């Protein structure tokens, strides 16, 4: 290994440790039998026990809730990415009246603090008859994820050479074929990032989920995890175990997606 590689790896290992270190407390709390917050100097549990995980897994409907979470996050990702792709493509490629306004509108939606949105959102979801259903959550989550997804994809589409699409049009491809066979395959990195973002948006959210869902078997996992927080005290052991369980699928999703973050996808397509 060359010296430069050594330096790079040393730097990366150091950064990784810095990144992991605070999270180690969560691990430590999850594997301690105690329910108190770990304030020790180093995140090393004195006794290792799986009680917290056992308690967590034996909670009623736990696996059902895990399923709900996967379903909601999965659907959110699918729907969010799908609609964002089309919208971002239009924003990037077509010049139509209202385009700039639309883009700004997407940005603007992120500007109003969400804290006051609860009441009207509830009323809306209720009037659509989607209370207590995964569909309601999927609807809200995918729309809240859309602005970033659209902007991010649009930014990426902007960097894709337009000649490729024109070339496909000359080859006899209709707009949909161009989008599907040329644009989307070339945008895999951006789509991967967008998908991860959508997934996380849906996966960790609990306030809306706790408000919209009124049956424990309909809950998503973060709602259950948040139930460990009480008025005066929190079952930190259970919470930490839950937090770990919640974050594992995210890492798995990212691990699966990250092979799409491969270099130089558009290389060789166009010159200059």
């Amino acid at each position, binding site marked *: 290994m060359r010296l430069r590689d050594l330096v790079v790896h040393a730097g990366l290992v150091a950064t990784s440790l810095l990144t992991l270190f605070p999270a180690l407390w969560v691990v430590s709390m999850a594997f301690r039998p105690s329910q108190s*917050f770990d304030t020790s100097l180093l995140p090393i549990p004195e006794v290792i026990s799986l009680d917290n995980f056992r308690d967590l897994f034996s909670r009623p409907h736990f696996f059902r809730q895990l399923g709900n979470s996967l379903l909601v996050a999965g659907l959110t990702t699918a729907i969010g990415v799908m609609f964002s792709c089309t919208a971002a493509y239009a924003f990037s490629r077509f010049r139509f009246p209202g385009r700039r306004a639309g883009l700004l509108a997407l940005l603007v939606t992120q500007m109003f603090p969400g804290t006051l949105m609860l*009441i009207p959102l509830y009323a809306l979801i209720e009037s659509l008859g989607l209370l207590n259903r995964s569909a309601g959550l999927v609807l809200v989550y995918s729309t809240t994820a859309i602005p970033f997804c659209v902007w991010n994809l649009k930014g990426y589409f902007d960097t894709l050479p337009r000649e490729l699409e024109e070339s496909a049009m000359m080859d006899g491809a209709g707009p949909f074929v161009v989008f599907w066979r040329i644009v989307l395959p070339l945008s895999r990195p951006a789509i991967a990032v967008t998908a991860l973002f959508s997934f996380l948006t849906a996966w960790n959210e609990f306030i809306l989920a*706790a408000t919209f869902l*009124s*049956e424990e078997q309909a809950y998503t996992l973060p709602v259950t995890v948040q*139930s460990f927080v009480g008025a005066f*005290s929190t079952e930190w052991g259970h919470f930490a175990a839950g937090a770990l369980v919640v974050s594992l699928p995210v890492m798995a999703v990212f691990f699966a997606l990250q092979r799409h973050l491969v270099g130089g996808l558009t290389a060789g397509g166009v010159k200059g």
Partner: protein
Amino acid sequence: MRGRRIAWALGVCACSAATPPAVPDPPRTELTVWHSYRGDERLAFLATVSAYDATRPDLDVVLVAVPHDALPDKLGVAIPRGNGPDVFVFAHDRVGDWAQRSYLEPLGFLTDAALAERFYDETLSPLVYRGDLYGLPLAFKCLALYYDRTLVTEPARTTDALIAQTTALRARDPAVWGLGYEVDSLYFHQPFLDGFGGALYSDERDTLAFDSNEAAASLDFVRGLLVDHKVIPNEATSALVSSLFLKHSLAYVVSGPWFRAELAGHEGWGVAPLPIVSATGRPSRPFLGVEGLMLNRYSKHKTAAFELMTALTTDDAAFVRSQTGGQLVANRQVYLRSEVRDDPFAQVFRAQLGHSVALSNRPHMRRMWTPLKDALSRAIVHGEDPAAALRLARTRVEEGAP
């Protein structure tokens, strides 16, 4: 001991789960109950509900555990649209707000004296707002003094004794601290505020009175504990306090019944009533919070719901909650049963109940926390003039008045 209790509660749950719900007639009434109980409390509550459910074939009680922080907001959006639960469990301090918004059904016309007699008067009155009763009390929470038996043989009865004991301890071993609680939290400061003769309000009309000399004196006193006597650790969060206490590095902790859950498996601790403030000779009375069963004003089955509420507050149900859930229940008879009578923990808190100040259930109360937290932090932690800090908090509270 604890394991057996849980096993028993689980058994009850399992039985109830086994009862087949598939009988279509007679038409079953479904009652929904929202709560935010966790751990043993949840199991106990579940057990009492299931037990009642089993006796009522015409009834289905659906329990929904809602995260505590999300519950008020969820109620706030659901009840006005007719989607709320029939019955829910929450602390009494929101009763005024909810009554004003007509979320709650007044119970004064449904309750009789016999039912009212089940409960300590102290736990009933916080649920009364403008002359109407809005909930049946399940349990109460207040602060008491936990102490470490390995460090303290006899818990201090007065603040002077406490200072003397803890400074001595500190002198012997500087790694040991004397007293632990969140000094800048109004909830925890209340005992001293009251002990020094201060109060938040001077009357029933929410006239602010916390910028009094007595209140300032209480701030000075705690500042003394923190800075002069150095018996309180800096930045004592509840997490830090419990970890110090578990390491036998803290003699006293001011905390509530929930603290016992964190001491599971820990030996050598005791609970005592909060000390008398030596400067005034008055007992330090903590805030009292009452968890009540409340009836949704828009419930479609108010009669059935009230019957459920009555059933969940019987002495027997309360006993289950007390034993399985470790709750400080509101029923007076329970404290006479041998299991509870012989439990010093329950008895100390019951005694403390007699020396407590109910949190105001008026909406105005919720505006007090943050400004007073600032005042406490300014005066106690940063050493600013207590009177000025309190006056500042007063302006902030008044500013909050719409």
